[in-house]
């Protein structure tokens, strides 16, 4: 539906370098990356607000590289919602209809329906400056879908909301994606939002697309150390394959041996990615288990965060384990005590370097 063919453009300090990606109809596509990576520039390029210096952009099978934004039929919602301060809520929602020449009576009917659908009919005559963040966001969404786009671009729409409103809004977005048959492209630097919403995603770092694909694959089996680090894999270890027995490899990491599943041949440099919640922690020397990787260590830090806790263990290298806070209390885990960590070979994602 949207295709970037080796697109490059620069805009002040932001730039995109040779980006190729394709977004399919019905995708909930996430563009993630650290601040200043060029995510918003990419989103605005889809909307037609920046013209690439090189490469082509295709929309619905046709090249639209030079097509102006008002002719693309793409909705856009910014992080700050960008409501028109000089117009009421109803004026904002009906703006697209007005400039497209929809008759007044019809536009009013459409606007009334949208206000009701988004639960903002009581705000119709208010000005944006008097609305809360959540209300502004619903107005911005209603305004964007009023012109019935088939693609909706969202630029970090959740970042300015409090946690409670965020949860509600995630539900709204899921419903919108489902009910309106929309292709949604959302820029975010939140891995959590990507986990909850994305069907496919791209990772952009320093203006370059470093990973793209199904969201679960990118999030659980990243293609590079850089991506693994960005998407928040807690334990990333560099090592060398010492033996491979039909896909069951032995990897040396700083003198400690790990077993993992990979096709990497002996002598190959690899990076092991181990999610903190895939590591099992036991007190003392531990028990015999089916896990292929077991190591002893000493707790160096326990950080409680709501119902969960991160436990950092020194076992020759520092590994992070995620437990429930109740487990931490039941096992009386404090810095200094000895523990055993175990990880299944299947829980280790191997990146070949």
């Amino acid at each position, binding site marked *: 539906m949207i295709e970037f063919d080796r697109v490059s453009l620069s805009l002040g300090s932001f730039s995109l370098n040779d980006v190729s990606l394709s977004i399919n109809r019905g995708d909930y596509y996430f563009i993630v990356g650290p601040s200043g990576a060029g995510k918003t520039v990419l989103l605005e390029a889809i909307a037609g*607000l920046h013209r690439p210096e090189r490469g082509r952009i295709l929309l619905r099978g046709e090249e639209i590289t030079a097509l102006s*934004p008002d002719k693309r039929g793409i909705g856009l919602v910014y992080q700050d919602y960008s409501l028109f301060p000089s117009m009421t809520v109803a004026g904002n929602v009906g703006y697209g209809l007005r400039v497209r020449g929809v008759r007044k009576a019809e536009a009013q009917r459409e606007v009334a329906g949208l206000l009701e659908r988004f639960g903002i009919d009581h705000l119709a005559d208010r000005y944006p400056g*008097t609305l809360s963040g959540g209300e502004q966001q619903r107005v911005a969404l209603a305004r964007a879908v009023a012109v019935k786009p088939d693609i909706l671009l969202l630029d970090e729409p959740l970042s300015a909301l409090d946690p409670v409103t965020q949860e509600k809004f995630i539900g709204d977005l899921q419903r919108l994606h489902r009910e309106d048959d929309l292709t949604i492209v959302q820029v975010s630097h939140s891995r959590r939002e990507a986990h909850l919403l994305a069907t496919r995603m791209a990772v952009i770092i320093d203006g370059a697309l470093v990973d793209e694909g199904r969201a679960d694959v990118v999030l659980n089996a990243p293609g590079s150390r850089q991506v693994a680090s960005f998407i928040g894999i807690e334990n990333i270890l560099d090592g060398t394959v010492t033996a491979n027995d039909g896909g069951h490899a032995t990897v040396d990491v700083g003198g400690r041996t790990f077993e993992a599943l990979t096709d990497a041949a002996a002598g190959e440099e690899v990076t092991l990615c181990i999610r903190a919640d895939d590591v099992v922690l036991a007190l003392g020397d531990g028990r015999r288990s089916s896990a292929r990787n077991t190591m002893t260590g000493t707790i160096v830090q326990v950080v409680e965060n709501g119902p969960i806790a991160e436990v950092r263990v020194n076992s020759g290298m520092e590994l992070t384990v995620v437990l429930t806070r109740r487990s931490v209390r039941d096992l009386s885990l404090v810095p200094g005590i000895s523990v055993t960590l175990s990880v299944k070979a299947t829980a280790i994602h191997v990146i070949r370097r």
Partner: protein
Amino acid sequence: MKTEALSGDILQGEGEVSLPWWRQRRRQHIDWCTVWFCIMGAALVGITVLAIANIASAELADPAHLLEVALSSEVIGSVLLTFVAGANAVLLLILFGTPLAYVLARSRPSRFKGVVESIVDIPLILPHTVAGLLVYLLFMRRGWLGAPLSEIGLSFEDAYPGTVVAMLFVASPFFVNTMREGFEKVPVHLENVARTLGAGTFTTFRTVTLPLSLRHMYSGAVLAWGRAIGEFAGVIMIAYYPFIISTLIYYSFTTDGIHTSRSIAFVVILVSFAVFYLLRRMTRYLGRYDDRV
């Protein structure tokens, strides 16, 4: 009575004995920074007030003469001509200066943009006589623009168009710079959203950007108008006649002496003050969209 009236002051704790008002006042915190700022500001305002009081005391001592001057057709005509010519210059500035200000506000920094900005500012830094000379040389009957325009019947020397064009020249930076500042304050995101909703560039400008810049347009127009109606040297070079206020005062000063020119000046002060005060009152809420304030 005074002490009783202050006994409910929120600064007074419960059960405290009532203090005389002057002692209570001393207990309040004094923000000396603000006090000094007020004193320094008052000195500046004071000079203007003193100057006006000075002229007022002299003029009000002879109200008959003042009234005679104020009601003379020459003064009324001159005041009207000045205000109308100034408004005319401002209208032209709105028409031509607004697009220029928008382009300057939205274009990326470049050497070319810097040059254009400097050209816009030239009337600000030039001595007014030089500005007048520039206008005269360009619009005189043999000037680059004056010659072709006089052929189609538009003459500038000692004519109303000459007054307008001189006012426009000296007032333009005030309008363009204020307007540009206003456009810069309108977030580009608003325009981007309008574009994606189906509005073309001009529709976006007309429906989104311009309404949000009205306060700046108004401020720029008032500044430019004020500058235009106060111009003397720039105007006198190309259009000594018809008399605008400043040329009339100069003429009166050189022919009739201080007495009449002072009366005209006082009339102008009163009229200008009334007009500007009225304009400010009328546009207090212009461009404000938050209904909480």
